[in-house]
């Protein structure tokens, strides 16, 4: 409970330029104060997603499972690869990819769709990109369960490397949060951004080795594809889940670097334009 009196003291001075450290500490403080609202939004969002179906919550497990099985059947026969082996490869890449696309598309709309709240009551804007990330990461965890069920079914071995999965997920989440912060603000100024984003993501999907094995690519194409930042994250998941071994330090460093850069970008964009957003909604 907000018993501290200081939590209800606020100062705002338009002539003072807020610096990055101040901005970050204020936002962290506000997220703590509004944490119940955050949990509530994530909760209602998740429950309304599955409420209308009889199987309800089970759909969150079955839907990705069936989608992936169909894709695995199609592509393993196309490439003439053993189904059980290819399906694990496909799933370990497709699940994080789904997290990437749904959180980017959802996140880009998060502030615009919150107009009803933002214009009527004070609520820190950072909450809404966070809600998107929270919802999508929870969804990812659900579908991870179905991935493991499937892996067990095909007799895949669970290695110690799986213990590194939370670290990979954390890095990916940070990377995505930076991007979502940037997108959520940009969409307010460019309303067609989310359409462009969906097309762009479709292109990137084929530029990331998910539905084809990396060995199918020529050396030259591979060099090109490595510039795709999503490649590094998908590779991280491939190594941990599919190859079942710990990623090397280069892989970790690249992803950590990308996550840091993205968080920095998102924070700067948010700091610069956060106050302007309400006047453009």
């Amino acid at each position, binding site marked *: 409970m907000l018993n501290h009196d200081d*939590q209800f003291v606020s100062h705002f001075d*338009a002539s003072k330029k807020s610096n990055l450290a101040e901005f970050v500490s204020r936002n962290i403080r506000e997220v703590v104060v509004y944490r119940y609202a955050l949990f509530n939004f994530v909760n209602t969002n998740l429950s309304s997603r599955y409420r209308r179906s009889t199987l309800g919550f089970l759909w969150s497990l079955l839907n990705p499972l069936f989608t992936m099985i169909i894709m695995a059947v199609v592509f393993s026969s196309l490439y003439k690869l053993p189904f059980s082996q290819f399906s694990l490869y496909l799933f370990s890449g497709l699940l994080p990819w789904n997290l990437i696309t749904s959180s980017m598309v959802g996140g880009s709309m998060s502030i615009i769709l919150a107009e009803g709240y933002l214009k*009527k009551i004070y609520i820190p804007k950072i909450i809404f990109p966070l809600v998107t990330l929270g919802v999508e990461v929870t969804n990812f965890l659900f579908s991870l369960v179905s991935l493991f069920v499937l892996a067990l079914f095909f007799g895949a071995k669970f290695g110690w490397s799986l213990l590194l999965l939370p670290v990979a997920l954390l890095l990916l989440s940070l990377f995505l949060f930076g991007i979502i912060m940037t997108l959520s603000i940009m969409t307010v100024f460019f309303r067609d951004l989310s359409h462009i984003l969906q097309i762009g993501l479709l292109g990137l999907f084929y530029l990331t080795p998910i539905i084809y094995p990396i060995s199918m690519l020529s050396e030259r194409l591979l060099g090109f594809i490595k510039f795709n930042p999503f490649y590094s994250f998908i590779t991280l998941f491939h190594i941990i889940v599919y190859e079942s071994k710990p990623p090397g330090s280069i892989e970790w460093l690249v992803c950590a670097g990308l996550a840091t850069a993205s968080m920095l970008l998102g924070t700067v964009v948010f700091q610069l334009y956060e106050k302007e957003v309400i006047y453009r909604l």
Partner: protein
Amino acid sequence: MSAFIELDQVSVKFRIYHNPNPSLKDAVVNWFTGNKKLNDYRDFFALHEIALKINPGDRVGLIGLNGAGKSTLLKTISGIYKPHQGKISIKGRITPLMELGAGFDPEQTGRKNIYLNGALLGFSPDEMKVKELEISEFSELNDFLDLPVKYYSSGMYGRLAFSIAAVTDPEILMIDEVFATGDGHFVEKSTQRIQQMVEKSSILVVVSHNIDQIRRLCNRIIFLDHGNVIADGGPEMVIEQYQQKLASIK
């Protein structure tokens, strides 16, 4: 409790854009064609260099014509609008009775919305659990609380929204013309409740076009016009000025 609100030369600018729905496509096209119209806008001051100090015990009524900046001032105090100029300092928990049901999710039940709305006001689920019964009794919704809010009549909707706001103990109470929802019986009940809340609160800021109501609730009136404070003081003096203004436009 020493709640206060202090505004120092606060200005809020609104921009009317030539193109209210900017798109990346337009931006790119205009960049190539050198068309600058996209970014055309007109500034106007919704609030212009407002300096105010509201002290504990103040019951402030904001009056003025439509578009004078009354609601903008309320929203600026509650932090929705960040001013382009000036300083704001506030101490005390703000309870807004602005747009009833602002934080409602129509798909969720009334009971769930109690928690959601409470969370937006900064209350934990445990605290709301304590208040739930009181809200249920005051709103007289009882079994309807387990129905999604979208099936509510507008009277029921308003009753629930008011009841949630009514069980919080406000230090700074902000009211934007939200009285009187529901049937006659509930209107009477909520009017009484507002009176109680006003008495308990340290500071009241209320926007209303209803002069009788303002007279009843307030001990200080601020008359706004085009974002400027025209008069600030005791009720009778300011109300007279306001009525002269009203008469002059007729």
